[in-house]
Every structure is written in C-alpha cells, then in structure tokens.
C-alpha cells in the first residue's frame, strides 16, 4: 500500500478520523469527523479495490461510494453484534478495518495491473463570489426553517390539562412507607391546586400549591396507618383547581395501595 499515495492517504485519514470521532466529546464535532468515513470512504475504497484497471468516473464513483458506504453501515452491525457488540470502539474499528482491508486489496490488485489508470480527481466546483453568497443565503434560509420548526409557538385553542399521579415511596426510617404524589401543570396558565390525600383507616391531608405552566411538583406523605406486609394502606388522592373549590367532583383522582416497604 505504501507505493500508492492515494490509498495510503485514505487509510490514514480514515484511521485518524475514526479515532478522533470516538475521543472528541462534543457530539456534533464527533459527527463531522465521523461523516467522511461513515458516508464515503468505506464505499470509495471498496470501489477502488474492485475497479483497478479502469476506475469509475466521477460523479458515478461518488454516488456508488455513497450507496456502498450506506450498505456497509447496514451490514457491519451483523458481525459486530457477535464480536463485542455495537459499541463506539467496535464500530470505529469496524469502519477502519473495512477501509484498510479494501485499500490493501486495491494495492495488491494494482500490482497485477501495470497499465492501471490512476483514479481521476473530481472536478470540484469553484463558485463565483456571487454564487457563493447566494448559496450561503440558501443555507441561511434552510437553517432558519429548521430553527423555526423547533420553535414552540402559542396556541390559545390548545386545551391545557393537569396530570395527577401517585406511587409508593420509601420513608426516612426503616419500614416507613410514604405515598408520593405528583402534579404536572400542562394548563395554559398559572394554576393553584388543592390536593387532598385520604388514607383509609387513617387521616386526611390537604395541600394547596400553585404551579406555572409546564412545571411540576411532587411531595411525599407518610402513610397513616403504616402498612404491614399483609395489610397495605389504601390512599385516594383528589385534585381540584382553586376556582373549583366548591365543585363536588374533583378535577383529577388517583388511588392505590402503599406497601410496607418500597425501594427507590
């Protein structure tokens, strides 16, 4: 391979990029390092290994390389699944091995084709400043479109709501059981709630709290009476929105049993 500068450069680039992609902790930079290996170099080296005497011309070579790289990405998980699993290290090593293997085959085959043509270099476009400016404008519009699509907008017709939930929670002392109650405000406005927990055979606790839209809170209440392994404590929790104080039916209701001991 050492006699073939193009193959050497590809193999070296693939190895360096793949290692850096694993090492660099910033996901987008890691992706930018990985992309040439994952989406092009694996397929391109396979193409170089196959078409030695007369390499494929551009742009065909580009599109086939792209497709073969996708095919490698689809196929490589099968061996990796049985060779250590799909982990950053195995993935990275797998991609580099494909490039190195194909480059080695290409180098070996070139030896038996003395009249082999060198792969042509792609004619990269050299846009005028005007074209480059318009291209940047297009990219800016596309980026703006994506940012806009990720922007949350208001909609007064969307019906807000509140969620109430209940689950057992461990207490501070050994054998102490608690009920964990959660309120999730997905209403369109700041809302005040009255939450009542009624323990069967025990007491009743009422809390008043207020939440901004999109915020939630939880609180734990000690089960009364404390449950035993044979006799869990039943609790029913109701929630009313504050302007509904007088309403007979609660806005939300959950219920369940609190067992004797609960692990977090």
């Amino acid at each position, binding site marked *: 391979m050492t006699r073939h500068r193009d193959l050497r450069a590809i193999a070296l680039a693939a190895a360096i990029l793949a290692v850096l992609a694993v090492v660099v902790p910033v996901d987008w930079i890691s992706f930018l390092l990985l992309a040439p290996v994952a989406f092009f170099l694996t397929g391109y080296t396979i193409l170089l290994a196959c078409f030695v005497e007369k390499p494929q011309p551009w742009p065909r070579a580009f599109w086939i390389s792209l497709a073969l790289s996708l095919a490698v990405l689809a196929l490589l*998980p099968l061996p990796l699944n049985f060779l250590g699993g*799909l982990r950053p290290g195995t993935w990275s090593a797998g991609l580099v091995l494909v490039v190195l293997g194909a480059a080695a085959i290409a180098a070996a085959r070139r030896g038996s084709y003395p009249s082999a043509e060198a792969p042509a270099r792609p004619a990269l476009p050299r846009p005028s400043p005007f074209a480059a400016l318009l291209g940047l404008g297009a990219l800016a519009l596309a980026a703006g479109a994506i940012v806009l699509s990720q922007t949350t907008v208001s909609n007064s017709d969307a019906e807000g709501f509140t*969620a109430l939930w209940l689950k057992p929670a461990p207490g501070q002392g050994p054998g102490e059981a608690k009920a964990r109650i959660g309120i999730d405000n997905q209403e369109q406005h700041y809302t005040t709630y009255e939450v009542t927990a009624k323990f069967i055979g025990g007491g009743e606790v009422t809390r008043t709290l207020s939440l901004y839209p999109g915020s939630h809170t939880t609180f734990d209440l000690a089960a009364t009476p404390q449950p035993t392994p044979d006799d869990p404590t039943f609790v029913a929790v109701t929630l009313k929105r504050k302007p509904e104080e007088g309403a007979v039916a609660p806005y939300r209701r959950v219920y369940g049993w609190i067992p004797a001991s609960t692990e977090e």
Partner: protein
Amino acid sequence: MDRVRANRFAVSMLVAGGGVFLCSLGNALSRGGSGLAMTAYILGLLTIGLPIFYRLLDGEAGDRERLALACLLGVALYLVKVVHDAPSFTFTDELIHSFNVEQIREHSHLFHHNPVLKVTPYYPGLEGATSALVKISGLSTYTAGVILVGVARLTLIGGLFLLFERIGGSARTAGVAVAIYATNFNFLFWGAQFSYESLALPLLAIVLLMLVERERTPATVMGEWAAPLIVAIAAIVITHHLTSYALIVILVAVSLLLWWFARDWAPPNPWPYALLTFILVVCWLAVVAGETFSYLSNPLSEAVEALANTISGESAPRGLFQDNGAAGPTPIGARAVALIGVALLAVGWIFGIRATWKRYRDRPWPLLFMLASLGFFLALGLRLAPAAWETGNRAGEFFFVGLAFVIAAAGMWELRWPSRRAAPWMLTAAFGFVFIGGVISGWPWDAQLAKPLKVSAEGKTISSPPLALAEWAKEEGPEGNYAAATADANLLMVPGGRTVTTGKNPDVEDMLTNPTLEPWQLRMLRKNDLRYVVTDRREIAGDGLQGYFFPLIGDERFDKLLFPGVATKFSKVPGAARIYDNGLISVYDLGGRP
C-alpha cells in the same frame, strides 16, 4: 459547471431555500392555529418545485447542473419533511424504528424485541446504521436518523439520475424524470420517514444503476461489479423485506428481457444476481426473520380478498381520499387538484409510451420501465378496494420509477406546441398540478401540516396529553408491560422508554375501546403479562399518525370521545389502582394491591 450555470444554480438554491422556509412557516402557523398555514405551505412547495422543473426543461442547462438541480429538489423536499415535525419523530413507523435504535443504544446488540411491530428488529439495516452515528458521535436517535435518511435520499436522487441518464442517453430526460419521480405520492412524507424502506429503496436504485453500467462493461472486466453488487444486495435483504422482494422481481424481469433480446443467458444477463438475492432472502427468512411470513401474509391476503370482493360487488369500493384513521375530509379543491394530477400523469404516459416504444423498443430496461409504468396505473385500481389500499400505495413507489422515465422520455418539450415559448411554461404548470396532486394523494389532508405537540404558554412549554403521559412514564412510571392505544403506545416507547403492547394481536385495541369489562380481556392481560393499562377516551388515540397532539377547541376530530366506561371499567378490577390521571388518559395498575 461554468460560471453562468453556477450562478443560475445558486439562484435556484436560494429560491428553493425560500420555499423550504415558507413550508416551515406554514407548519409554525399551523401549530399556532393560523388559517394561513396551508397557503404558505403550498406556496412553499411550489416555490421549490416549479423553478427547478422549469430550469430542468431548459435546453441550455448543463449535465452537471441538471444533476445538481435534481439533488437540490430532493434535498429541499426532504427538508420539508424534516421541518414538519422537528425536533422529534411523529410518524408511526418512525417511533417504532427509533425504539429499536434505543434498544441497540441501551444493550449494544441487535434483535431486541419490539412489542408493537415484531418484525422490525429482524431487519436491522437502518437501525444498525443509525447506531453507528449514535454510538460513536453521541447524537440523539432523532438527529442521527434524520441525517442518515437524508444521505439515503441524496443517494436515491443521484442514483436515479445516473440510471435514467444512462438508459435514456440524455441528462435532460434524466433530470425531468427525477423531478417527475419526486411527484410520486409517497415521496414527500412516506418515503422520507425514518423507516427501513427509506434506506432500502436508495440502495435498490444504485443496484439498478450498477447493473446497467455492468452491461456496458467489457466482458473481461464485468466481474469487477460483483463485489459492489453483492454488498448492496445483501444490505437490501437485511434492511427491508418488501424492497428485497421487489428486487427479486426486477432482477428476474431484467434477466428474462435480456434473454429475450440476446437468446443467451451469458453475462451481462443478471440471472446469477436474481438467484443470489433469492437465496439471501430465503436464508434470512429461514434463519432470522421467520416472523415476516405472518406479518406480510395477513395484509396481502386481505388485500387480495378485498380486491376480489370489490370486483365481484360483494363489498362497496373504497372512496377516494378516504383515510383509514380519523383524518378529516379532503377539501373539494384539493381533491380536484389530485385528480387533475393523475389525469395529467395518464396523458404524459400516453405520449411517453409511444415515444419509449418508438425509441427504445430494442432495449430491455426501457421495456421494463414501460411495464412498471403500466403497473402504476393498475396499482391505482387497488386504491378502490378498502384493504388493498395500502398495498397499492406502497407498490406505486416502485412502479413510479418506470412511469417517471416513460413520461420524461416523451420529450414533451420537443412536441409541436402552439407557441414554442409557451411549452416550458405549460409543462411547468402541469408539473405543478402533478406535484401538488401527488402530495395531496399521498398523505391525509389534515396531516400535511404540523400540529401542536408542545405549546408555549406564559413563556413556558406545555406538552400534549399523550406526550405528557410519555414524559411521566420516562421519569416516574413503573417498569413493566403496558397496554395502550396506538398513539399512546408509540410515545410510551419513544420517548417514554417503556415496553408497550398495542393493536390487534393480542387484541388490546378492542379491549381499550369496549366500554364493558369482559372476562376475555382480563385473561388476555394476564396471559400477556400486561400489568399497566393506559385508557384513553380520545377516539383519535387509535390513529398512529394524528393521535399525538393537543386537543384543539372547535376541532371536531378531538371532540369524538369513547364512552367513559372504556376508562372506568378497570376500576372494577379487584386490586386495581389508578396511578396516573390527566383527564383524557389514565393509567391503571392491575397489580396495584401488593
């Protein structure tokens, strides 16, 4: 590309960028409830499609410029899909496949169970490929999936362009054919989603390109194509069942056509690749993906039965523009545009079939495309049979490759027009109808635009009821198996990270819509170890495309509620606890009493 052409292309890029922005604006307006949303969206689509098509018709455009324009069209339309629902997947299949990626992310191995679509883990091509980006770079499944499908889309466009160029012998025909292909019903949304076909179809296009190039290679070096073809074919086989079967059919057809012309099975006849694909498919089915038989046999046999019943008059034909879910009606104007689009395709096909026969009747590939183009119109007939609708819709995407070539091969720009200058304008206008008609035919009208999954309220963000359920499940929900309606189930899997059963097998769907508690329901829940039942009074919860969003005041689709009994009946189960309640959606723990 010379400077003038490069400048023209840059202008096309800017205009297409504007079109994408308009579509994004349309989606944002839709999420906000504005009536101008659809106008902005359609205007955006036309801003993308029409100038590019007009330039592709232009005889002065260069070959490379045409390829670049075709890619620009493909990328811009892909971005229209991306801005529809960023930054999360909202199509049913996308959530199912991203669950598989999450499983690989968590366990570092393939073939983990998918409770909603059991067959998908056995075709791990897409998820495996995505896991490379996820595992190495740390990108989210959504971002990695969007990038991967984007690269696949680009591959599809480039592959089809080079294929059409080689077969038709003209970059102009190729460019126009690719633009026409982009009008197929499934191009904008279905084919661009994070699903296995979105990766397999581009690979199929490249396999066809490689086969065509192989035919033109001297016999002594024809074997050089073997490795790339085998790699691409193997990748298709492990990525998507239907695409691999379509590949077998195509390879057999090409082999027979080549034999017909040459009376010789020797290379370049691709029969060994047809045989290889068949063997790989059978091996994959036998060793890994045996579930595929039951997965595909039911809908296919239902499709055949429905078609027979419709033809014999035993059942009424399916109405056009009728969605199986809870979609609202398609406006009359939109229906008219869609029908005009199909009519224009038929007109183009009539011209195209004559021209293709005249020019290429001694060549196998154009003949194959002619047969495929006929297949497209036959598949349209399947849309009239209720259970065959989906089969016809999916087949259309493959047949459209042939139809696009045949229509482009008509070279309509060279026909005798009343005014030579009017020809490109009229053809571009016709393209506009076909393009928008395809968009309307391919996706429910009221799902064309984004709906509010999250809403801004007093400067904060609130989530829709099913999304809030999924967020609760992820943070606070108990581990274990859940039973839920389709939309709730999909979100409970991703982002909820829970194991959920939905649909008909086992019959969770009927259990969740039946207001009375019957013994079979409890037996089924016990048998399948489904401890947590998610009840949802929204009828739309059964719709895997539209059931994720906020109920909107005044929108009748959200007013359709199931009987209260569908939820309250579980409170009668001894030992059942209601552990979550957000009004419309509740979660029952059937093993609530320890």
